[in-house]
C-alpha cells in the first residue's frame, strides 16, 4: 500500500495505491493527516482509482478525514472508485457526507 500526496493551493490530492484494510489504513491515515496539518486544504481529493481492494476500514479512513476537513468547513471528494469499492462505500451511506464519483 502506498499513498502519493500532492498539494496545489487549497486543494490536497491523495492518490491511494494498493489494498486498504485495517492493517494498511493505519499508515495511509498518518500520511494524509500530516499533509492536512501542513497544507490546511479546503478541498481534499481522495483518488481511489488505483485501489485494488477495500473493506470497511476504508470507510473509517474517509469518515475520519471528513471529520477533520469539515471542522474547517472544507470538503472531501472521493474519485475513481471501482465497482467493488463503490459497493462498500454505498453500503455505508458515505455519499451523504462526501462527494462520491465512480470510476468512469
Amino acid at each position, binding site marked *: 500500500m502506498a499513498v502519493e500526496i500532492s498539494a496545489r493551493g487549497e486543494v490536497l490530492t491523495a492518490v491511494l495505491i494498493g489494498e486498504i*484494510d*485495517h*492493517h494498511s489504513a493505519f499508515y495511509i491515515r498518518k500520511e494524509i493527516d500530516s499533509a492536512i496539518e501542513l497544507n490546511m486544504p479546503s478541498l481534499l481529493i481522495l483518488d481511489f482509482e488505483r485501489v485494488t*481492494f477495500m*473493506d*470497511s*476500514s476504508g470507510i473509517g479512513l474517509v*469518515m475520519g478525514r471528513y471529520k477533520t476537513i469539515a471542522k474547517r468547513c472544507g470538503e472531501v471528494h472521493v474519485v475513481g472508485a471501482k465497482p467493488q469499492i463503490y*459497493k462498500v462505500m454505498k453500503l455505508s451511506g458515505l455519499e451523504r457526507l462526501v462527494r462520491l464519483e465512480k470510476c468512469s
Partner: protein
Amino acid sequence: MENKNSFSMTVLSKSVNESFVRSVVSAFALGLDPTVEEISDIKTAVSEAVTNCIVHAYKDTIGKIYISCEIKDNVLSVKIRDRGVGIENIEQAMEPLFTTSDDERAGLGFAVMESFMDSIKVRSAVGKGTTVLLKKHISVRYANKKQR
C-alpha cells in the same frame, strides 16, 4: 459427482494476516468458478471477519484465529473462529455503525458480511470466543457446468 473440498488453517491475530487470509480463501473459492464480483464479495467479508478477531477478540493480545472452509456443491462456507473476549450482545454488535472501538472503525463489519454473503451465523460466549459462519452460493456458469 458431488463437488466437495475443504481446508483449514490457523493464523496469529496480526493485522498483516488480514490480506493473507482473504487471499487464501478467495483462491480456494476459485474452484467454484466465481465471477469477479463474487470473489470481491468473499474477500471483503472474510477481511471483515478476520479484522474483528484482531481488533476486538484479541484486542490487547495476540491469539490464534482458526479458519476452515468448505465447498459443497455450489456453496462456499467459511468458518472463522477465535478464543478471544467474546461478544456480550450479538444483536447490538451486528447493528450497522455500532462499534466499541475508538480507533476509527466504521462499525460496518457485520453489515458488510451480511450484505456481501448469502448468510451469516454468529455464536459467541463472553470470555470464550466467537465463531462466525459465512455462506455464499456461487452461480453455476456454462464453463463450470461443462467441467462436471
